[in-house]
């Protein structure tokens, strides 16, 4: 993955996730999500993105963070990989941060597996640590999960 210049930073539980701005299509709030029965818990449902039907993935389930408090209103971060779209439901979208080369680091050891699988690297800022998400890997992981299911 090439190094992005700007990251869209979102919060999921206590984790900060950074997405390359060029991978982010848009941020949706208060969208009606249609739940889809018989899909795994990580699939929240489907959403209408101006005529395109996009699958909503719950970042908390994906990252094994535990359920979101009922009062919280999640945001949907729509990311794009090639022609595919995916909406990642996060707790909130915080900011767009500039990537400073000196702050870049490889993904540290000791991350939870679920988080490590998505991490392309980290951005070590003064006050916090942003996990840079490998969007291509995210799509692959979701497809990979299907395969395992079919072979089981």
């Amino acid at each position, binding site marked *: 993955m090439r190094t992005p210049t700007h990251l869209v930073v979102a919060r999921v539980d206590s984790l900060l996730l950074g997405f390359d701005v060029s991978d982010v299509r848009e941020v949706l709030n208060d969208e009606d999500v249609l739940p889809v*029965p018989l899909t795994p818990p990580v699939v929240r449902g489907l959403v*209408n993105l101006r*005529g395109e*039907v996009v*699958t909503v993935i719950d970042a908390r389930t994906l990252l094994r963070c535990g359920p979101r408090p009922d009062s919280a209103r999640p945001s949907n971060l729509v990311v794009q990989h090639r022609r595919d779209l*995916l909406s990642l439901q996060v707790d909130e979208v915080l900011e767009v941060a500039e990537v400073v080369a000196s702050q870049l680091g490889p993904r540290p050891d000791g991350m939870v597996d679920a988080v490590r699988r998505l991490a392309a690297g980290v951005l070590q800022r003064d006050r916090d640590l942003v996990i840079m998400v490998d969007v291509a890997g995210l799509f692959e992981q979701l*497809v990979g*999960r299907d395969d395992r299911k079919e072979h089981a």
Partner: protein
Amino acid sequence: MSMDPAIVAEFFAEGNEHLDALEACLLRLEGNPGDTDAIDRSFRAAHSIKGAAGFLGLGAVERLMHAAEDLLDLFRQGKAVIDGDSAGALFRAGDRCRMLLDAARNGEDVDVGSVEAMVVVLREAVARGTSGPAASPAVSVPVPVAAAAPSAAGGSVAERAPSSAPATSSPGGAVLVGRAPRVPRVVRRAPEAAALVAAAPAPAPAPPAPVVAPTVHVPVASAVPSVAPAATPAAAPVAALAPVAPAPPGAAPRPAAVSPAREAEAAEARDASTGTIRVDVSLLDDIMNLVGELVVARNRLVQVVGERDDRVLAGASRRVDHLTSDLQGRVMKTRMRPVAVAWGALPRLVRDVAASTGKFVNVEMHGQDTELDRSLLEVLKDPLAHMIRNCVDHGLETPDERVAAGKAPVGTISLRSRHSGGQVHIEVTDDGRGIQVERVRARAIANGLVTADEAAQMPEEALLALIFRPGFSTAETVSNLSGRGVGMDVVKSSVERVGGGVDIRSTPGKGTTIRLKLPLTLAIVPALITLVGARRFCVSQANLVEIVDLVTPEARARVEWLAGAPLYRLRGQLLPLVPLGTTLGMVSAESEVRGYVVVVESDDLRFGIVVDDIQHTEEIVVKPVGAEIKQAQVYSGATVLGDGSVALILDVVALGRRGRVAAFRAPDAAAAKQGDEEGELRTLLRLDVETLGTVAVDVDAVVRIDEARAVDVFMHGGVAVFRYQDRVVPLRRLCAEGAWNQIVVCASGSGLVGLAVTEVLDVVTQPVRLTRGLGAAWSLGVGFVQGQPTTLVDVARLEGGAS
């Protein structure tokens, strides 16, 4: 190199068209080497590609087409006549060129070595052609016999396809769909000759052979990588001397010949006369998507306007409504392509498969102009190729076998296409050996698809349908072409995925027909919007049969339970029900069914989907969904409805499978027709009774089926009775205590009676011829049901016996 990208894109598009034309002409030439028009066209095609490739600096393409052009020029000037080897070389040169073009377009590296090898092969062919007229006798001149009787001797008279040129079939193994009746190059009448030809080497890659037997041309392919140009002079004269031994005329294997050039010609003519323009397919897709959005917005507008009382607004909205529909129709039309596009590659495929199996095949095409959506043509490509491969490899016999069976040595495969009832029907028919039902049965049992008992009871039609099951293959030997047990199931699943169906008919010794039924388009389909709770689910109208409401208690009383699964008695037939809410896990299982039954049919499956409410029908735009949704295996896609909300589209076949209703087949139309001659048509609930065998009850008499353990049986006055809705009902135990597991409650004129049986089997509709006076006192008679002797229960007598 800086080059206008539009020009480059044009070159690639045109290059592929020229290659298509080249291939089509070569196929024609194989049927008739003297076809000067085809020679000219193929020469021009090679020349055009060469010229443009030189202009764009594609040296490999240029060299390859230059060599091809040299060879074609020989034929053009009449210095040599095209034979199987040179045709084979030109075919492969075309293939190689296509690969080069693809590689160049994708910016990939080119394997120059293989191009050079191909150039060498072509030059060899040129050398052979120029080495003297000795080559010509091998390649016989059109034979007058065939010319005199172009169609009758072939055993099949090709039908005249709508708006197509006369199609003539002849015994020479060539189908000639062209403007003038043409004569095949070689006529093979004697079976020995046919066998000999079949034994000749196929133009398949073989180890490089130093020139061998004097009777046989060195297969062109064998010369490929390692034969150096130095070898050419030595090889050429020997090859040129070819038919020294008693070889049949035209020993080179050239088993299939077809000329599908009509389409290419027609397209050319259209282009020239009406001034068409080339439009990027992705642009058409974008336009289609926008029209889809417009349809959704229109639906919304019409809905909102309908809620108001404004005549001016209503008028404007109606106008938008009509224009949108018009636009939708036109845009759909731009996506329509003739089925010939999907058929284009088939003659070549037939040629190659026929060559490697030593068979002779005619290909007939009817209705090439039938149009369908281009996305469907994509879907069709692989299934068609597979079916054709199967036809040639398994369906058709070898020439010896055909002659022994009293048929012409040349087999025929016909492709037919037509519009029928808003669908496109495509039939692939061969006149081969047909499918032997007994072998299908044996193979299905051997592969564990069905048990011997099940197979013994299956009607012929159901047995034939087994070839569409995964893991089925009847080929005695697994060839490299087909017969690996994958295939027909893929054909079926890909066709069903787009809302189509497949059926198969076969007559042993006569041939097989496989029919594909496809929708005209995939993009926008009419659908019924149903509700479960507040959620909407769409059912394609293509699957919809009728809607039954369960509002009245009388209607609800027609719901029966069989082993915990609900059934609905619809006009004497038990219809399995799939309550959508519980099947999708949205609500917990209920003991009562309410709402509406949406009766659907797909393939041979007919069942009822139970929903809470029905909304309306709407034209929906089918949106693809991601793999994470598809894995649920109940949805075929999603859509955005008029109000902007998302709704799921149900995959009816998968839903039926999930609801486990596959055991119930739709009533058999063929069986219904037979009814008059072969006994009364009955719909029966089949029951297994230990020690007695199979017993059947008319479904109209069946009230309810219960698990025996859920019923308390009492002895009263020496008679077994049980409670059913606060009534005492006598129980007839047809088998010993402990051997019965289910109780079938039957009604007769005067009351109810319970029938204790070992197992409830299924519901079948078929004609039954009864032999009366056989079996127990309560027997109406004994007849064959599903191939098994079965006692039909006379419920009235049963009741009398019990009380």
